[in-house]
C-alpha cells in the first residue's frame, strides 16, 4: 500500500485537521470530534441550510462542496463509510438558519440509515428537514428501479443547483424540488482502470489485469457491473455517453452541462481526450454543451478511471447552474 499517510486509523481526522488549518475563512468545525463542518459564519439567518455527508476518500466530495452558493454543512465519515447520525445532527444544528435544512447526498445504504436517524433527531430539536437522494449512476440498477441507483459525480450538479437556490433565498420545499429535479435530469457512468485501497484495510478492493477495465464503476472501491478489456479513450467515451443518453433520452437541441470527472489517478490530459470525443458525439446529436466541467470532482482515492455526467438544462436550472459559487475546492464565477 503506497500512501502518504501516518497511522491509517488517524487518516480522516488528520485530513480534517489539515483542512481546518488551511481554510479557516471558509470552514469551521461544528462538533467536538470535528467530523461535522459548516461554513464559517453559518448559520445564515433566513436561508435554507444544505447538509451533505458521506464517507471520506472522495475529495472534493463531500466537504469540498461546502461553500458560498453550495452546501452549508457536512458530516464526514471514515473512508467510504457513513458519518454517524450524531455527526449529521451536529452539522444540521449549525447549518440551520431558521428556514430548515435539506439533506442532500448520494444514495448509499449506510448514509441513508444514518441521515434518516439524524432527521428523527432533528425533528425532536424542532428543525425541519427534507431529504433528496442523488441516484445518478445509470448502470447501477435498471430503469424500473431508478431510485435504487447509487449517487456518484452528479452530486456536484445537485449541490450547485440547490446551493444557488438556497443562496437566493428559496424555501426548503423549493430547494428540495430543484435538487430532485436536478437528480431526475441527469445520469452518470464511469469506468475504473485500477482499484482503490482503503488505508485501514491496506489491500486493493479488487484486482484488474493489465489490459482490463471495470465498466460501470462507483466511487467506493466497489467493482463495476462487468469487466472488459481496456479500450481507447474514444471507445470508452462512446460507451459511457451511449448508456447515459439511451437512459436519459434528451431531446434534439437540448442544452446540457457535461462533466468529465477523474477518479483520482487519471491525468487531466486524458479527461480532455474524453471531452473531445464527447463533443463530437454530442455535436452530431445536436446537443449543446452549455458548460463543461472537466477535472476531479468526485474521486475514489487513488483509483484510475473516469466518469461522465450529463445534466439536461432548462431555463430555471441554467440560471442556477450559472450562479457563482466558491469553496476552497470549487470555484465558479
Amino acid at each position: 500500500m503506497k500512501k502518504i499517510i501516518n497511522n491509517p486509523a488517524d487518516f480522516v481526522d488528520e485530513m480534517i485537521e489539515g483542512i481546518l488549518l488551511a481554510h479557516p475563512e471558509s470552514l469551521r468545525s461544528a462538533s467536538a470530534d470535528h467530523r461535522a463542518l459548516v461554513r464559517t459564519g453559518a448559520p445564515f439567518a433566513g436561508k435554507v441550510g444544505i447538509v451533505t455527508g458521506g464517507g471520506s476518500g472522495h475529495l472534493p466530495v463531500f466537504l469540498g462542496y461546502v461553500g458560498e452558493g453550495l452546501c452549508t454543512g457536512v458530516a464526514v465519515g471514515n473512508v467510504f463509510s457513513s458519518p454517524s447520525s450524531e455527526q449529521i445532527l451536529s452539522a444540521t444544528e449549525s447549518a440551520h438558519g431558521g428556514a430548515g435544512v435539506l439533506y442532500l447526498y448520494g444514495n448509499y445504504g449506510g448514509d441513508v440509515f444514518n441521515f434518516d436517524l439524524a432527521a428523527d433527531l432533528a425533528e425532536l430539536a424542532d428543525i425541519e428537514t427534507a431529504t433528496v437522494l442523488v441516484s445518478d449512476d445509470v448502470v447501477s440498477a435498471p430503469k424500473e428501479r431508478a431510485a435504487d441507483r447509487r449517487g456518484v459525480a452528479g452530486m456536484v450538479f445537485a449541490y450547485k443547483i440547490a446551493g444557488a437556490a438556497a443562496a437566493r433565498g428559496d424555501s426548503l420545499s423549493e430547494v428540495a424540488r430543484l435538487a430532485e429535479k436536478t437528480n431526475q435530469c441527469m445520469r452518470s457512468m464511469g469506468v475504473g482502470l485500477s482499484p482503490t485501497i482503503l488505508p485501514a484495510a491496506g489491500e486493493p478492493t479488487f484486482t484488474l489485469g493489465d489490459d482490463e477495465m471495470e465498466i460501470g464503476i462507483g466511487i467506493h472501491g466497489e467493482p463495476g457491473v462487468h469487466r472488459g478489456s481496456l479500450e481507447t479513450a474514444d471507445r470508452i467515451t462512446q460507451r459511457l455517453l451511449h448508456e447515459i443518453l439511451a437512459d436519459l433520452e434528451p431531446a434534439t437541441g437540448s442544452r446540457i452541462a457535461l462533466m468529465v470527472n477523474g477518479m483520482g489517478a487519471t491525468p487531466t490530459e486524458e479527461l480532455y481526450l474524453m471531452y473531445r470525443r464527447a463533443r463530437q458525439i454530442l455535436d452530431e446529436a445536436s446537443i449543446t454543451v452549455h458548460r463543461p466541467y472537466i477535472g476531479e470532482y468526485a474521486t475514489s482515492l487513488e483509483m484510475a478511471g473516469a466518469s461522465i455526467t450529463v445534466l439536461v438544462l432548462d431555463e430555471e436550472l441554467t440560471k442556477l447552474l450559472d450562479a457563482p459559487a466558491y469553496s476552497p475546492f470549487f470555484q465558479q464565477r
Partner: protein
Amino acid sequence: MKMVELRSILERTLQSMPAHADELRKLDAALGDGDLGITVSAGSSASREAIFALPQSADASELLMAVGKAFSTANPSTFAALIGGGLLAAAKTVHGNTALDRADAIAIGDAVATRIAERGKAQLGDKTVLDALIPSLENLRGNRLGSPDSPNPSDSPAPDAAEVLDAMIATSHAQIDATTGLQSAKGRAAWVQERSVGHPDPGAVAYLRFLQELRTHWSR
C-alpha cells in the same frame, strides 16, 4: 443467564471478532467496498469497551442500548447501522431484566430481524444478513431446521443452549450456501447485479462468525 455471566461471554465473543476482519473484508470487497471487516472489528471493539464502561448494575436493556450505540457508530456502514439499530429496538423488549432466558433471546432476535427488515426494506431471499438471521431464530424457538412452521415437537426434550447454538450455526451455514447462488437485491451488492451471483453475502457470514464465537465462549 445472569448479567454478570452474559457480560463475560459477550466480552470474550466480541474480543474474538476482529480475527474475522480479513475474511469479511475480502467477502465485502467482492460485492461492495470491502469495509465490512472494519465495521465488524471496530464495532466489536467499541461494543466491548461500551460493556466495560457500564456499571455492574446495568440491566439487559442498558446493555443492548450500549452495544447497539457503540456498534452503529464505530464505523457507521450499512451493516453497522442495521445491526446497531436492531439492537436498540431489541433493548425495549427486555426493559429492566437482570437476567435473560430463552424467551428473552427470542424476543431480542425477533426485534433485531424486524427492525433490519423495516429499515433495510429487505425480505427473505434478498440475500442479506436476514437470510441467515431469520431462519436461525427458528432453532431458538425450538423448531427444527427446514420446518419453521411446525410447532416445538413435544416428544423431544428441550435442547440446552449449546445445542441450540449448534443448530443455529448449522442453519445459518446452510442458508448462506443456499443463497450464494442468488443475485443480491439490497445495498451495495445489488449494484454489481449479475456479478453478485456466486459470492456469499458478507453480512450473513459476519452473523455466522458471531454465532460460532458465541458458541466457543459459551461453554467456557
